[in-house]
């Protein structure tokens, strides 16, 4: 039972809320407002004047083949990251749930990658896959598979997907493990007695019962792949070779910070903002309705 606290007056509750409101205002509403405002402006080449151009920035980015390329990269990248991170995590969670001896150690070790900073994780993968100094990169070249993610765009994409997914596996793992542990053992035993083999038990009982968790994680993973992978990409490939690993968030950085095209960058941020708002809305509505047991 949650107790309802009754305040005399409004001053104290507002005071207590103030720190959070200030943080939200300064770090979210203010920059978001700036981005929306900036997306309607265009600067001249020397940064001396700004003109109001209406929706022209949006029209420009949507007809820019580089932008559309980044959209496609983002679709590939985020779906690959989300599905591989979810798939690996659910597999590991099922195995860790089964383990009797040393399960605590497995769980701890599997959770660790989450504590690694994105750039550090990227450097780790760099040391593994670098064509000249990387352990696996040298090995691949050694057995005759030409491996150089700095030249081959598909290999670069594969590398950033692996690095980004690896970091997210831990997060998913925790949720899946909690989900698995909340399934009563007797339900699985009932299924075993009903004649279901382990594979069938997984697909007809465990997986459906994890569906709400999976859906929640799917949205979280897509949001992660959209926004939180900047550090990984920046450290590994800087969006290259060419534009092969330039995703939407990376392009915001390239256009805004490197090319100093604030209008285009702001318009791209607004598009990203719209996407994340839509994803969150879908998640809330779905979770309210579709928790089906």
């Amino acid at each position, binding site marked *: 039972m949650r107790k309802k606290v009754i305040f005399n007056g409004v001053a104290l509750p507002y005071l207590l809320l103030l720190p959070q409101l200030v943080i939200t205002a300064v770090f979210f509403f203010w920059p978001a407002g700036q981005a929306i405002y900036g997306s309607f402006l265009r600067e001249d080449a020397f940064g001396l004047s700004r003109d109001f151009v209406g929706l022209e920035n949006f029209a420009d980015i949507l007809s820019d083949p580089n932008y559309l390329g980044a959209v496609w990269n983002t679709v590939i990248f985020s779906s690959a990251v989300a599905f591989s991170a979810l798939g690996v995590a659910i597999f590991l969670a099922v195995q860790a749930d089964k383990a009797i001896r040393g399960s605590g150690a497995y769980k701890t070790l599997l959770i660790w990658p989450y504590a690694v900073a994105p750039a550090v994780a990227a450097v780790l993968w760099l040391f593994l896959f670098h064509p000249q100094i990387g352990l696996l990169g040298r090995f691949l070249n050694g057995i005759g598979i030409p491996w150089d993610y700095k030249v081959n765009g598909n290999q670069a994409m594969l590398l950033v997907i692996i690095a980004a997914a690896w970091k997210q596996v831990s997060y998913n793992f925790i949720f899946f493990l909690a989900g698995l542990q909340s399934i009563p053992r007797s*339900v699985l*035993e*009932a299924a*075993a*007695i009903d004649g*279901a083999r382990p594979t069938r038990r997984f697909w007809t009982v465990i997986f459906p019962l994890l569906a709400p968790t999976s859906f929640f994680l799917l949205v979280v993973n897509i949001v992660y792949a959209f926004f939180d992978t900047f550090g990984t990409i920046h450290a590994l490939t800087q969006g290259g070779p060419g534009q092969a690993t330039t995703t939407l968030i990376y392009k915001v950085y390239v256009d805004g910070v490197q090319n100093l095209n604030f209008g285009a960058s702001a318009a791209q941020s607004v598009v990203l903002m719209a996407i994340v708002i839509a994803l969150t809305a879908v998640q809330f509505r779905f979770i309210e309705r579709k928790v089906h047991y």
Partner: protein
Amino acid sequence: MATLTLSAVKKQFGATQVLHGIDLDVADGEMIVVVGASGCGKSTLLRIVAGLETPSSGAVLIDGRDVTRLEPADRDIAMVFQNYALYPHMSVFDNMAYGLRIRGMPTAEIRRRVGEAAEMLEISQLLDRKPRQLSGGQRQRVAMGRAVVREPKLFLFDEPLSNLDAKLRVQMRAEIRRLQKRLGVTSLFVTHDQVEAMTLGDRLVVMHQGRAAQVASPMEVWGTPADTYVAGFIGSPAMNFLAASISDAGRSASLKAGPTLPFADGARAGADGSTITIGIRPEHVEHRPDGADALPLAVELVEPLGSETVIHGRLPGGESLVARLPIAAGHIGETLPVRLPPEAWHVFSAEGVRLPARAAVPA
């Protein structure tokens, strides 16, 4: 329908011996209730029969076939769990049909069987619901239905009534009994509740610390308990145990509480003076207002139950005694004359094992 045989089933978890060798023969269509306090190994025994645990040694035979190493799926059994273990994401129909679908039964046959079982259990109107929309009693019925549709060789019940409220429990108990008799499926029912055990079982297995203390019909268990544990476990209020010693060349018992009384059913083996325990059920203690052969019982607590009164008191030697008298009698502080009729005695050795009469006393 099948027989079930357990031979020398042992189970260890690490260094802990949970089952010390259980032997049991269950006849076709028989309902066996395994009863015991928590931690006696009864659930482990059931799980071994189900195939959810593997015995450390010994064998489980269903219909003469050794199933000790088989998966639960290959044993053709059905189990009703304490928490029902319904599949929360499936409708009642799908819950009941799950096992049949896995066996690849034709849809029409599945419909027929689930329909029949639902009819029998009066849950036809619930088939489209999800388990969370059902009450405890309804879930219980669905769990029963899921077991029934499979038409298994063996029903296993793992304390299925303990999550129900008292009234529903009595009702479901009668229903399970009726259903089991009607279907004639060999059943193993695990419970810690002695009333369930007495009313449901054709035979009882009273478990104590991983051993079967007694395997017998309910009335045998009640009438001739094999040891002091069984005697104290079955019956409510529990049997009184009084210290005594053999006297009169095995023909009488000297109670610590005072009198020396002859055994009603015959002499016991054992030297005079050797320690024994006399058990007497509270309902067999007699109130003797006239005082004949009576012991004074100092009343400490009176529990009036309407049709009878349960009296807790103390005998002269300081031993406590519970009496269940068919009258409204006694109040705290009073001394009540009671008689402990030797015809109703259960005689146990110092080790707590039943001590039978050597020979009947000539009348």
